[in-house]
């Protein structure tokens, strides 16, 4: 009885695991439609660590505005949580705030963290080529927190 139960569990688990490992990039194109994702386990697109890295690099920068002057705010002062063995800022976690969907919540957060500033500007930063022209950097204001 126990052997049967274990066998059943293993079969179901293997099916789910390999289904989710290949669903997004292999099964969806094969079947030509978006197959359902199993909730509460597995990432949305399988195991894709560093799978596509191009020569551009983008991130977010936050500026505080006071008396008409723009001051760069160190991202480590914005997100103070220190992870063990790595730096979440370097993992570009701040780039998530660029989405205008997150704008109001992030503005609220900034106002609480840095009450000394009158306004904040959240900017998208983009290096078009880190190899050809590493110093060339484009800025685009994503939104301003009034």
């Amino acid at each position: 009885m126990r052997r049967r139960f274990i066998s059943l569990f293993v079969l179901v688990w293997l099916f789910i695991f390999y289904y989710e490992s290949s669903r997004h990039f292999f099964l969806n194109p094969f079947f030509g439609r978006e197959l359902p994702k199993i909730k509460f386990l597995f990432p949305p697109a399988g195991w894709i660590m560093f799978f596509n890295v191009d020569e551009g690099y983008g991130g977010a920068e936050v500026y505080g505005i006071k008396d008409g002057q723009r001051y760069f705010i160190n991202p480590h002062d914005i997100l103070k949580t220190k992870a063990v063995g790595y730096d979440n800022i370097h993992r570009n976690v701040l780039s998530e705030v660029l989405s205008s969907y997150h704008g109001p919540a992030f503005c609220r957060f900034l106002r609480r963290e840095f009450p000394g500033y009158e306004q904040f500007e959240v900017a998208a930063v983009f290096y078009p080529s880190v190899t050809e022209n590493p110093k060339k950097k484009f800025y685009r204001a994503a939104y301003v927190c009034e």
Partner: protein
Amino acid sequence: MRMSIIQWWGRAFLELRPSLGLSFFRIFVALTVGLHVLPSFFHLQDNYLSTAFKTINLHFFTPEIIEFVQKSPDAWVYFFVVFFSVTWFFFLIGLFSQFSCILMTLCCYYFYALNAFHIGTLSWDILLVTLFLMCVTPYHGDYFSVDALRSGQRDSYKRFRPFFLQRLLQLQIASTYFYTALHKITASGNWLTDNPMYYLMNYPPEGVVKQFIFREFFAARPELCYVIGVTIVVCEILLPFLLFIPKTRSGAIGLGIFFHVVLVSTFHVPTIFFFLFPPQLLLFINPKDIVQWVEKKRGQSQNKGRAQVIYDGHCQFCETSINILLTMDLFGYLKPVDYHTIESVKTLHPNLTKELCHSQLHLIEPDGTLSGGFFIFRRLCFKIPMLYPFIFVFYFPGSGIAGPLVYRWVAKNRYLFHRAKICRDNACFR
């Protein structure tokens, strides 16, 4: 044909094998979870309370769950912080291993649903898959755990369990390597058609690559970077196969561990890659071989002569303590001796008397070194693997003064600990 498939299936998943490797792995799973989640508790205002900036992962959770969790008042957050810390610690020390694993995992889900901003990474999703598997059985509590000490089974290090859980964990990590490589060379991956390593080495200082010593050297050599990139992909594709072939297994484990050491030294990747994956690679070592190695070490201890622990066999508390020590004693270093069964304790060691033996535990090492009370734990913490974590405690400045005092108090009141009816007033202690 049908028979051979059934036999293969039985050997792969159902065969009984020792759970020692899984027990060892549990410690690293707990450490990984702790190192990933606990730092986020130091800034609750920023991370989880109503003041925090939060992101949600709707790929992972259903909207209902997210909505429900997001309504958590701050008091709930504080409750879960405490609850997580307790269950995490229980899981680490292996107290109610399976139950604490389930509760801790639920807490992990809670914090993930509450705010995916800091803890939600791809490797976190990998860790949750591992945690889910760890929740399925209590096998990981068989040894290196308080559960093992509570069971009092001295041979719990070689407890046999169905192998399916360890096999699934093996398949998980092997497949993760394989699919990582597959995505790099198919789908939208560009590791063959472009030069991702070269770009990574040239990322701006705020990028994901650490400022390691040879970074500039690599950043100036695109051809070398391409070769390294392709080599990584080849290794990731081959590793799963090399891990399952007995002849190449140890080399593959070494290669995998080396890969992760290099990865965390050069990239800002979550600690999970360092604390979870290398121990998971060690799950490829056949647990039967590990137990065989342990038995060999136990045999060597027998031949070299074991250390004798002299205890009071009339004291139930001492009996229980000795049993715990012997359960911890993986390499069979200790030989218990009830001093009541010895005609003259002087035959054991010239400095011993019955009064001394009655007052505290004593340890006589194979070279004749005698130590007593608290100091035997200082001696044993280097010999008994389950006492290794206490090396820091036993040698902490001041422990040489506080330790003997605590020990003396416990020893003096030991008859009360087991609530012996004949000894309600501790009169048995002289």
